[in-house]
């Protein structure tokens, strides 16, 4: 912390944030979960981590597929590592396979003859959270779905905020006709039922990751724009801006050197809430079947399966519990960030 050249105010805010325990620990936990999810292939995957075969090591996790012939099997498609492990064990010739803790990927259907999915959680088979209605591993779909959702929300947030900060700042700073025009636009945008529009659009073309993001961006930018407009408006009437202008500072200089640094607290404070709303919207769309295309692992799709297979309690409970955990922790972080930037000290009567 001390190596960073932070001004004392920022350091104070960070200190305050760290002193709010539940927010701070939630932030650490979430950051770790997000980082780990980027290496999810190492924990939840059908490919083995290490294969030792005839004295040589193979690391199949990343890179191109290794055909079965690599390990002396009689097929040319990708090696089935779970079978390979059993085979090596039976042979007992010193070859071995190290599988990830959850040896399934999010797409494969693990079907056994005579057993109809969904199957209940069973540590023996490696399905820690059971399988869904087509025999896919629930844990794998949960983990990869989390990664998709969080990446989606973060990218959406970056795009939304870039547009929102730019237009909002311009509205507040330049005012006049520009401001009035965008005010009307925002008023219209805010009143269009955007879930309806997304569903209409999604019902004609199956959206992929980026088209879905474009559609959401189309409606998502207004919130930040509105807050930034108000904030800029307030800052602009402050004396320091007047002073800067009196000294001959240009508009871009004032905006980037003075106004944006002073409105950063608004931007930062809203971030956690934007992330959780991104996850929620994506999940709702997937739940309704208008989100990401079919085999993509997603929480909404799991929720949908859970509600149509009510007997398979493990599907619905694992996704609902994950959602509660994630969203509550994000909210804790958001509340702690807000508190750090704008501490409220209350008088308490004894």
């Amino acid at each position, binding site marked *: 912390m001390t190596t960073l050249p932070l001004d004392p105010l920022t350091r104070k805010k960070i200190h305050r944030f760290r002193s709010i325990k539940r927010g701070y620990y939630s932030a650490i936990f979430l950051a770790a979960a997000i980082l780990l999810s980027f290496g999810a292939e190492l924990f939840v995957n059908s490919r083995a981590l290490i294969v030792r075969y005839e004295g040589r090591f193979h690391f199949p996790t990343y890179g191109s597929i290794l055909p079965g012939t690599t390990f002396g099997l009689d097929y040319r498609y990708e090696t089935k590592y779970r079978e390979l492990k059993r085979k090596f064990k039976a042979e007992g010739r010193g070859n071995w396979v190290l599988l990830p803790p959850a040896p399934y990927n999010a797409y494969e259907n693990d079907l056994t003859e005579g057993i109809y999915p969904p199957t209940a959680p069973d540590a023996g088979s490696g399905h820690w959270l059971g399988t869904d209605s087509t025999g896919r591993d629930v844990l794998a779909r949960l983990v990869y779905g989390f990664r998709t959702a969080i990446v989606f929300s973060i990218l959406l947030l970056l795009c939304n905020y870039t547009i929102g900060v730019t237009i909002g700042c311009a509205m507040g700073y330049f005012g006049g006709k520009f401001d009035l025009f965008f005010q009307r636009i925002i008023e219209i945008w805010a*009143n269009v039922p955007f879930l309806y529009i997304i569903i*209409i659009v999604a019902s004609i073309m199956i959206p992929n990751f980026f088209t879905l993001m474009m559609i959401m961006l189309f409606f998502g930018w207004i919130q930040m724009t509105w807050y930034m407009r108000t904030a800029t408006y307030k800052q602009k009437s402050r004396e320091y801006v007047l002073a800067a202008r009196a000294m001959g500072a240009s508009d871009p200089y004032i905006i980037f050197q003075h106004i944006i640094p002073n409105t950063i607290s608004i931007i930062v404070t809203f971030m956690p809430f934007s992330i959780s709303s991104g996850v*929620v919207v994506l999940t*709702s769309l997937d739940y309704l079947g208008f989100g990401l295309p079919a085999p993509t692992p997603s929480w909404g799709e799991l929720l949908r399966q859970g509600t149509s297979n*009510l007997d398979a309690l493990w599907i*619905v*409970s694992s996704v609902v519990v994950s959602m509660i955990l994630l969203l509550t922790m994000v909210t804790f972080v958001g509340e702690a960030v807000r508190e750090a930037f704008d501490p409220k000290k*209350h008088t308490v*009567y004894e």
Partner: protein
Amino acid sequence: MSAYFARRFLLILPTFLGVTMMVFAVTRFVPGGPVERMIAEAQSMQGDQVRDSGKVGQAALSEEQIQDLKEYYGLDKPVLVGYVLWLKKILVLDLGISTRYNEPVWDLIKGRFPISIFYGTVTMVLTYMICIPLGILKAIKHKTVIDNISSIFVFVGYAIPNYVVGILMLVLFASYWEIFPMGGFTSENFDELSRFGQMLDILHHAVLPLTAYMAGSFAVMTFLMKNSLMDNLAADYVRTAIAKGNDFRGAVLKHALRNSLIPIATHFGNNVSMILMGSFLVETIFNINGFGLLGFDSIVERDYPVVMGILVISSLLFLVGNILSDICVAVVDPRVQFK
């Protein structure tokens, strides 16, 4: 002040036009409208005939028939002309005819009113009845066990969307423990029940959806109440009241509480649209034939007259609700000056 509100009411018009025009245009550019569906239906019908007679049929519908159909649904004109025609009909309160049911849109919508209003008003009343006392309690008992424990529930309720609460309860209480019914508004034997039995039946069906509905607004309202009361408790006038020997209870209830209710009033107008629109996700989950489910179904079925009809009603309610909120604030708080 009245000039301000008059201007606000006038500004409804351009917003309303913008919103409806946008959705109208989107529905126009989307394929799969009523005409396409009829062509598909005619084709499948003809397909059967062809198989029966062994003859090879021509196109399912002739060009002329398609043209007639387009004219019937007003799809033969460019978007803007179509929009103006639609608008003219709206002005005489004609919402058009559903392409799916061939019934006037207004009749369809009207049929859903009772259910939506029932759920909306009960949710609203319950939310206020629970949130205001809970908020007061949490403010007074700030940082005590009661406050912290209730905070957990409020936080979770705030964080997760209300339809997930709905799903969770459906799974636990309807499917697993079978305490409450899976959905719907009444049981199948509703007509055979006595008056009292009917009431109980409706309530029995309403418990889960109502809880899901409330989960959304509940958290916001409780925090709003708590925070505004705490702000007021810290204000000088409350300190004065206590300093001059008022008991704490009196100071809170007589002085601080009245002023803390102002932010609650700002939310009041939104209830207008909440009462009617509800949440179509919750309605989908519990299979409640309300307003929201009608809207969702008509989008999925591409029944655009109904979509537009619902949009007209919901956007008007929303815009009026916003102004109503401001009026509420102005009435409750004389310091507020709208210019």
